[in-house]
């Protein structure tokens, strides 16, 4: 083997190694970006689904298909706190529409640390939805913040927990919701932990049920 051949081999090995490294780096980066994008997408989808559910339910505070069974809708809110609310409404329980009987609906945020695991987001909590006395339902959609702020008719904030005597003063509710990725998106821990979880935030200002104050 001549000198020129050895130089060619060394040169080609260096070039191959260089190209290989580029490929690997690009591949890892792409995977991370892809994972992050997917995480972002998932996060947004979770947020939209939660938002739709909250809007759907909260717009029915005080609603009953048979109003005679709930004559005073201003009594519909039974409990109001910064992370929990219980109210009366008429739910579509079997997919055929509201049945004309009053149901209770209770939303509350679970405690931190309910979800454990290596890659799990430590800030994620479960948002529970309890209908009447049926088993409580909750799913891990990455909720990290669920905050309710209550306003009276004159736009004054009502301190929480809202006292029973003040429940009828509630005129509108501000809902703040933050959703994060439930698991870390980074394959290699190159990023700080906080940036491994994509975040989406939604806030509905002054959501007011049309039924709640209609009489």
């Amino acid at each position: 083997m001549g000198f020129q051949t050895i130089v060619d081999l060394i040169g080609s090995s260096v070039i191959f190694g260089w190209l290989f490294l580029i490929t690997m780096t690009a591949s890892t980066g792409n995977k991370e970006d892809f994972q992050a994008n997917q995480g972002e997408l998932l996060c947004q989808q979770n947020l939209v689904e939660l938002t739709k559910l909250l809007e759907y339910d909260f717009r029915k505070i005080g609603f009953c298909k048979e109003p005679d069974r709930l004559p005073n809708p201003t009594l519909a809110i039974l409990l109001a706190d910064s992370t929990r609310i219980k109210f009366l409404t008429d739910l579509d329980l079997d997919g055929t529409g509201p049945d004309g009987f009053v149901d209770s609906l209770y939303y509350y945020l679970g405690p931190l640390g309910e979800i454990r695991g290596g890659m799990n987001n430590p800030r994620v909590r479960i948002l529970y939805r309890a209908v009447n006395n049926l088993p409580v339902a909750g799913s891990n959609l990455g909720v990290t913040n669920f905050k309710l702020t209550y306003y009276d008719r004159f736009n004054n904030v009502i301190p929480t927990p809202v006292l029973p005597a003040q429940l009828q003063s509630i005129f509108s509710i501000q809902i703040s919701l933050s959703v994060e990725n439930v698991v870390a998106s980074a394959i290699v821990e190159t990023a700080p932990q906080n940036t491994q979880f994509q975040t989406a935030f939604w806030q509905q200002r002054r959501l007011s049920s049309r039924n709640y104050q209609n009489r």
Partner: protein
Amino acid sequence: MGRQALLMVIGYSLIFLMTGAMMSNSTVDAFNNAMNYYEGNITREIAISAANMGANYIFVNKPLMNSNPWWNGWTTPIKLNGGTFTVTMDSVQDMYGRWGRIRMTAVARYGDSTYTVSVLFRPSQFSKFCLYAGSMSGVYFEPSDSVFGPCHIDGTLNYGNPGGGPMTYGAYFGGKVTTKSGIAALTNPAKLPTFAQGREDGVSIPLSLNTSQLVTEAAGNLFSGGELWLNFKNDSVAWKRSKTGTVTTQAISQIAPNGVIAIDKGTLYIQGQLDARLTVASLRTSGSTGGTVIVKDNVTYKTDPRVDPLCKAMLGVVGYGAINIDTTGAHNNFTVQGSLYSQTSGVQVVNYNTRPRGNLYVLGGWCGTQIYATSNGTTAGLPVNVTYDERFRVDAPPYFPGTNAYEILAWYE
């Protein structure tokens, strides 16, 4: 360029194209997700707008009210904000099978989304008020006054402390308050009342007694002239034509199949315990006499609707003139359960400044052109406690005077 180099370029290009496509898919999905939410919101806004426009039509044109024609809605799709909507109308019964309510359904379409809003209306009646006054001439809501239900003043709502002295707090209104001409303080500084459910000015709801309808519904049981004494005995009523007249007892369903007992150009006396839905009226179809109601003793329901959800009894007391509390029982505390309506006067306590001191408890509502003093404030008369009957938010005694407007009972979306 060699073949290998060409293959390498093609290979890298394919890898980057695939990566780009995957990234692009995520972005497109995220965009679609956002657009889906946006589209849903736009569709909802169109449906809400349609429902509001439909409701406005109903409020203005009042279908089936005062001989107005029925309205079918807008059944041909109407374009709005890039989408379309339709509005359909339906006449519906309440849970007891009674007709009179109407349902409006607004359906909006935008792109692939559909959104439906269903609104239930009923003819609005004066029994929905805990307190209604045509005017408050010379009368004021004082610090000790409280109204725990819907209140309307078809004039100016006066407040202050006519007794003089400093005010540390104002009157309390626990329900929604509407006025025609706003509020006015007797003296300044006077403490503003608390309007827990807010206040809306510029709302005019004049009293409106449809005498001919009550005459029609009373039908053959319309008494004319003189006196009519009614003593309710649950689902029956003992009646006589004078204080010492012959008593006749009849089932309410027999004497008032439509739920209305009325006397025209005479005086109506009432007392007793009721277990039926009934409106009693003292009318004045013509002339200048009659139309007065006199409450002689307790008028109560068989069971208290506040604790008995099955209580079906509901009373409306309608007078063209005053509704006088002229109780002569051995006791000084009296109870009147029902919605009281006076077209040209109000509820008055006879000899309020000389009669023995007691209390008048009203469960229902109180409507009249004027509010009158019921006690002298210290030693005589009947201070009044009006508690709202929550059933009147959605229900009313038979043919109770209406406001000539519809109101929304339920909004479903």
